[in-house]
């Protein structure tokens, strides 16, 4: 995305106008637990996207492959709190799939896989 410079310093409008406008000040009453590393992915049965905002569609495109919430926020260049609201919209529509778990300390098998993986890079 472009013109990030004036994102936070839109003097006429005051701070935070853009991200606030993007989510229309909505909270996330029924939002799933979205953590930094929670994996999200666009569903292969995504619904009609014509009613979606540009940002929602950008997320759908990004999530053609699985990504973490933190990666989506970084690529979209919006604060985490904003991307969580946008993702929640898409999850509610069934357009984005989410890993249904809060961060858990990995078990032995998972640690072994990570160990082998890191050794192999």
């Amino acid at each position, binding site marked *: 995305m472009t013109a990030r410079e004036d994102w*936070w310093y839109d003097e006429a409008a*005051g*701070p*935070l*106008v853009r*991200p*606030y406008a993007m*989510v229309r*000040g*909505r*909270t*996330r009453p*029924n939002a*799933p637990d979205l*953590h*930094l*590393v*929670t*994996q*999200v*992915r666009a*569903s*292969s*049965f995504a619904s009609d996207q014509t009613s979606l905002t540009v940002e929602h569609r950008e997320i759908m495109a990004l999530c053609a492959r*699985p990504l*973490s919430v*933190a*990666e989506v*926020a*970084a*690529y979209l260049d919006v*604060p*985490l*709190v*904003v991307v969580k*609201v946008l993702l929640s919209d898409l*999850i509610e529509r*069934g357009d984005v*799939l*989410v*890993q*249904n778990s*809060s*961060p*858990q*300390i*990995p*078990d*032995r098998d*998972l*640690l*072994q*896989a*990570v*160990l*082998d*993986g*890191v*050794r192999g*890079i």
Partner: protein
Amino acid sequence: MVFVGSDDQLTVPTAVKIVIAGGFGTGKTTMVASVSEIPPLQTEELLTEAGVHVDDLAGIEGKDTTTVALDFGRITINTKVVLYLFGTPGQNRFWFMWDELATGAIGAVVLVDTRRLDSSFPSIDFFEHRGIPFVVAVNCFDGSQLYTVDEVRHALDLDDAIPVVLCDARDRESSKTVLVGLIQHSMNRLAAV
């Protein structure tokens, strides 16, 4: 809401994370960059001017906010597992971020610069108090390796069970060795309980 595995053939990997902590300028971002498969990314959390974490956008329209940036990298382990490496924000006042980072983490690397040992005390305290596995990696800035591993261990008042290693955060193999040491340390801790 559709969860993975219900009616969709697509899979979503399991994510694990490692925290790269330490004082200001100890080489956290450098270490993330040296092992990450992508150039480090940045993500921003929102804070009010008073430093309070904004976790809900309701009611903050027009309020002055600032951001705290986290940098992170990624190592795809295989199609089912992906590892994220998060550098902690430099300033210690962002403890709320540390909690989110540390929850469910494999463990932490605490980077130490021997010219400013005390700058890593808060990180060590944090992981010690929460019982999170960590290793101490002494980042050998050019010609600054003034102390031996034992001296560093003593100066930091570290338990014998905490691994202390020397490293060069700019070097991929060196950083890999530190990560391998941390994962093994975590596995040993798991076996011990």
